[in-house]
């Protein structure tokens, strides 16, 4: 058990830190949250800088255009970029963390050459078309139909909770290609161009008041069969590759950010006198201990991934996500306690964070689904009927 970093890892960190110190002051001003074209341009601009400096697709395999970095280097990258206040992955999330790794793992040479370089260069944005109004936790029951017509699939249906749909070039789309097969066996994974005729996007307003995601309607949209990644009806397995990435190191930067927020909370509480309340003070102390442990759990999971072949994160990600999403919600509830009545003002940054934290126990697998995964796949308890 060793928590020290090798000389090579320390060099990597030092070079990255120096580069961030140089490049971050040159960045343009952040666009407003409602300015979607502005957000797209900002996020892609950051990705282009990463690409030019050799940091794009750090954790992707070399033969997919990535840098083949170890999980530990990726951890350092996420830690340092967050610490320096670098832009969040933003609109590049699906391309870099979902669709890209899936195409890298399952795509043909042609498909990799078509789709991966534009993601790495910051030229194209992807969104995710997985969930449907009637297929959420039970994702495999999705009903969007794709019917073969010559060299095309003709697709009709609707997808929901699609982030960045308004500004995406491509959608990683799950469709049902065999309605007669058992539900997990009749699904295919397609890359759909968002400007195809028949695609319409209706933004959905979240409880935080902003339009962070959308519903996407598909009305006889034609997508070439050549855009299918993996075999026909094998899309569920292809998807599981993607999801295992999402539950791995996706939250590293956020844990770093939460620890910084805790420090700001302590400072604010000290200034406004709330620190003298032992109940609140101890709660802050406990959260500090919990987020410290969550950081260690991240390092534990990364070390484990580094030892396993391919570095694919395991089911330990579910344990982490469960602990983290609940701790994050408690963090912002505690922030409201520190602020008192000021927490009712939307001008307080922590109030918006408190609202957005409510999605953490729902998105990317609800806590209830995660507990099923932990109980059945790690503890080996029987599946329910």
């Amino acid at each position, binding site marked *: *058990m*060793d*928590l*020290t*970093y*090798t000389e090579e*890892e320390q060099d990597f960190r030092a070079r990255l830190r120096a580069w961030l110190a140089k490049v971050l002051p040159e960045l343009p001003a952040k666009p407003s949250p409602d300015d979607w074209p502005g957000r797209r341009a900002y996020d892609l601009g950051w990705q282009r800088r990463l690409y030019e400096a050799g940091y794009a697709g750090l954790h992707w395999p070399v033969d997919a255009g990535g840098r083949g970095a170890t999980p*530990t280097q990726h*951890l350092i990258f996420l830690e340092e970029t967050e610490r320096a206040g670098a832009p969040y992955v933003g609109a590049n999330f699906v391309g870099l963390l979902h669709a890209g790794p899936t195409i890298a793992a399952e795509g043909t040479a042609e498909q990799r050459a078509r789709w991966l370089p534009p993601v790495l260069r910051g030229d194209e944005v992807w969104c995710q078309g997985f969930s449907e109004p009637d297929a959420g936790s039970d994702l495999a029951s999705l009903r969007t139909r794709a019917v073969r017509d010559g060299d095309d699939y003709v697709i009709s249906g609707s997808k929901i909770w699609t982030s960045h749909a308004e500004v995406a070039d491509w959608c990683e789309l799950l469709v049902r290609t065999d309605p007669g097969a058992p539900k997990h066996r009749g699904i295919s994974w397609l890359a759909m161009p968002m400007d195809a005729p028949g695609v319409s996007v209706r933004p959905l307003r979240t409880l935080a008041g902003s339009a962070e995601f959308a519903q996407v309607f598909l009305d006889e949209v034609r997508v070439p069969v050549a855009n299918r990644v993996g075999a026909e009806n094998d899309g569920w397995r292809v998807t599981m590759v993607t999801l295992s990435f999402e539950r791995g190191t996706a939250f590293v930067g956020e844990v770093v950010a939460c620890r910084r927020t*805790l*420090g*700001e909370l*302590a*400072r604010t509480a*000290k200034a406004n006198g709330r*620190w003298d309340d*032992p109940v609140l*003070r*101890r*709660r*802050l*102390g*406990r959260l*500090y*201990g*919990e987020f*410290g*442990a*969550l950081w*260690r*759990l991240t*390092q*534990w999971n*990364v*070390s*484990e991934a*580094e*030892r396993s072949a391919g570095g694919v994160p395991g089911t*330990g990600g579910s*344990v982490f996500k*469960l*602990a983290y999403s609940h701790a994050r919600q408690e963090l912002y509830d505690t922030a409201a306690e520190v602020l008192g009545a000021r927490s009712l003002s939307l001008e307080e940054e922590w109030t918006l964070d408190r609202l957005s934290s409510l999605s953490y126990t729902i998105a990317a697998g609800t806590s*209830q689904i*995660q*507990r*099923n995964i*932990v*109980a*059945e796949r*790690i*503890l*080996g*308890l*029987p*599946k*329910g*009927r």
Partner: protein
Amino acid sequence: MDFQPTEDQKDLRAGVRDLLAGRYGREALRASVDTGASVDRALWRELGEAGFFALRLPESEGGVGLGLPEAVLVFEEAGRALVPGPLVATHLAAGVVPGAAAGKAVVSAFDLDGPLVAHLGEADAVLGASGVPAGEPVRSVDPLTPLHRVAVAGDASAYREAGALLTAALQLGSALRTVELAVRYAGEREQFGQPIGAFQAVKHLCARMLVRAEVARTAVYAAAVTGDAGEVAAAKLLADGAAVQGARDCLQVHGGMGFTWEADVHLHLKRAWVRAEQWRTAAQAQELLAQELLGSVEEAGQAG
């Protein structure tokens, strides 16, 4: 960075697990409960010979020369097996109290707030006091942790950091064991025509137990590697929570059986209650962490 146990560390843990399974299995545990004899001097000496107490003593002083990471792995196994007796205090006394390193002496400590001392009647020495003070027996909640009340409390605070960490490791072992016990029972016990573990209400209880135990595990291991006071406090706090709540959830999964003397669940819960009071309580750990948090902000403010 490689925050996984080395092969040597895994072997050490497996060796201690085998030793305890053979020497202090369930029958031995229940026999101690029946006789009320918590410290078995012969077992104590065997643990001493296996290096349990001399683990961190330098080889030049006749010890094994290993560190806290190895010690927490070993204590995790003792917690899993519910080995009774002042294991932590005797380990801390190695090199200080003659005979402790070899398991020839049983050493307790003033590790509880106030005048209560555990295992006083069986102790050859008590850390924090000169000699063994006289005390009045008190009926203890844990059948395997006898308690005495003494007139004047001693001070063992010099041993507090390592004491808290090793006690956290015992809690961790107990927490992981209660997950296993709950999962096994939930897979065997049938109601409504299926194992109760197939019901989400039960399944989710078990999943929550594991999540708490796994978070505590990384906190305990990390604190052993860094030795940082804040991390030790966090490890104790999280391991106490995982052990106490884990035992309670395990009891709930066992239903009526869980409320009986015959099931082992209550032994885990009661011992976890005792350990939660030893060396550093939850309130103390939270206060220490709060001060560390504030200190980290003020430091950053001065630096910036």
